[in-house]
């Protein structure tokens, strides 16, 4: 290869790289702003996202177990479900609520919508940011789990699946949040949250293995449409493989499907709110 060719190739690649970086600059700056604000409010952020899973784990895993109401080993089945719930619901709430406030009251998002970047990129940033928060919250559940339960199920060889499922679960939750936060009119957000969050919380196979619902067929069908079920089942299958579970690869596949669908509806909703 001649020197000239080398030079052309190098400069060409560099130019494309610069352009890509240039296009990403606004979105990265918006993400940096979100992280900056979160970092400053880290204790209140962690308290806000961890209180619910910690109480669930404490009451269902520790208290009921100590009182002898639960079969041995239940806490070990519960833990992966609570991690899944933390990943999914944290990112859902951290997208939906700020969006409702941004679009209807504070209008803060207007300045970011005027950044020189496609509007879709601003929506995706919301998802990435909520996912980061949810991943941090889920990771925090592991030491908290050890502290509350004494021991937690763990298989180091399953680490790759755990990371993948937590990230997929968080992304899917953020996409669901994007859909919810942009489709629901601001005046109805309270009622919608009450009507959506509680069912999501209890139909996600977090507190029970899905396969065991054979005895309650209709409920098993209902839980199958909740994306959280696949995060719970996948994590349980990875960490407690002895329990009957939906195959882990299938969980990941279904989550990818939910993610694609909810991202599409979420971005459509976001564009509808951002542009008249």
């Amino acid at each position, binding site marked *: 290869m001649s020197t000239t060719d080398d030079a052309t190739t190098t400069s060409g690649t560099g130019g494309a790289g610069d352009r890509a970086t*240039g*296009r990403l*600059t*606004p979105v990265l*700056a*918006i993400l*940096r*702003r979100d992280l900056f*604000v979160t970092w400053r409010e880290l204790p209140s952020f962690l308290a806000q996202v961890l209180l619910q899973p910690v109480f669930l784990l404490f009451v269902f895993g520790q208290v009921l177990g100590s009182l002898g109401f639960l079969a041995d080993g239940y806490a070990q089945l519960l833990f992966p479900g609570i991690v899944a719930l933390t990943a999914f619901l944290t990112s859902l709430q951290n997208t939906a609520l700020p969006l409702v406030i941004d679009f209807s009251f*504070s*209008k*803060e998002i*207007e*300045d*970011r*919508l*005027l*950044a*020189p*970047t*496609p*509007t879709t990129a601003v929506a995706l940033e919301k998802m990435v940011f909520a996912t980061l928060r949810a991943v941090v919250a889920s990771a925090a559940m592991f030491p908290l789990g050890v502290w509350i339960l004494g021991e937690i199920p763990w298989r180091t060889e399953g680490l790759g699946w755990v990371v993948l499922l937590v990230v997929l679960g968080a992304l899917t939750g953020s996409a669901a949040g994007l859909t919810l936060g942009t489709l629901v009119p601001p005046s109805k957000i309270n009622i919608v949250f009450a009507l959506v969050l509680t069912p999501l919380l209890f139909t996600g196979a977090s507190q029970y293995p899905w396969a065991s619902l054979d005895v309650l067929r209709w409920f098993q069908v209902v839980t199958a449409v909740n994306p959280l079920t696949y995060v719970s089942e996948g994590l349980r299958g990875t960490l407690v493989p002895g329990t009957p579970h939906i195959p882990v690869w299938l969980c990941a596949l279904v989550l990818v499907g939910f993610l694609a669908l909810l991202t599409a509806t979420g971005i459509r909703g976001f564009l509808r709110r*951002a*542009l*008249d």
Partner: protein
Amino acid sequence: MPAATVGQMTSAPPTDRDAGARRPDGGPPAVEVVDLVKRYPKASSNAVDGISFAVRRGEVFGLLGPNGAGKTTTVGVLTTRVRATSGRAVVAGADVAADPSAARARLAVVPQRTNLDQSLTARQNLLFHAAYHGVGKAERTRRADELLDRFGLAERADAKVDKVSGGQAQRLMIARALMHDPQVLFLDEPSTGLDPQARLFVWDRVRELRDRGTTVVLTTHDMDEAEELADRVGIVDHGKVLALDTPAALVARHSGGGSIEVVLTPGEGDDGDLAGRVRRALDAVRGVTGTDEMPADAPSVRVRASVDGDPASSLAPVAEAVDSTGAVVTDVRLGRPDLEDVFISLTGRELR
């Protein structure tokens, strides 16, 4: 005539604005709107109904119109927040529909309602805005310091923005808009809700921007503001541009004459309906083309008579007619025709 003060509601000499409008046209327009139409779903009529205009580089252009006239929607299209149904809009060479990102890089918006980032301080609002626009770290720090200073916000730089006053928030939003050095600045009702000092301050900054070559498009329904700031004004109503020219040219073309406004208090033994009697007396005066009762503090009444030609030449017969009603005149104002007269004559009187 009893103690009367005679003031004149004349506007500033129009020569400055004429000079501004005649400024040599440097290349393509800063903003170009061609046959723009915006129809909202389920609406019975078009919010914007075929608007066309062009704003020259370095010009202050005013879009004047009653509420709901279509000016905010037009600016929404120009600032990439509203998708046009048809037509074309170009800002600083970028087509807002085809390349919104490029348009956003070259324009800035100061909204009417505050949309500052409440989680950040004043300075951080400026710094992050510049970062969104890819301004380098050293440069954005320098610009933030300079703009905070120029907008009298240096002392509030590190205050959370929910702690600043309305006027300071408005100034901060203008400063923020200037952080990425836009070619075209859109100001939506810039002085609504500001106290007179803040208003004059904002006006000075706008003039400064024009002097630096930034194009400014402002929407307003404040006639003083339009007359004071704009090189040219487009009067918009029902989604159409009704007239477009320098304020002076608009006034000369669309306004028939001046006005005389008198403030009266009832004389002793007055038997009511003073305004009605004064209006009837004035209607009979030669040269008076119409009368209106204006708001006044009771028991005073304020009557405005529209007159043909120069109001000064009708002053004597008007004073005589008022005197005949037995009322006591406490104030007289001669109104040369202004933009408000043009506005009312073009858009009508009914409330929106």
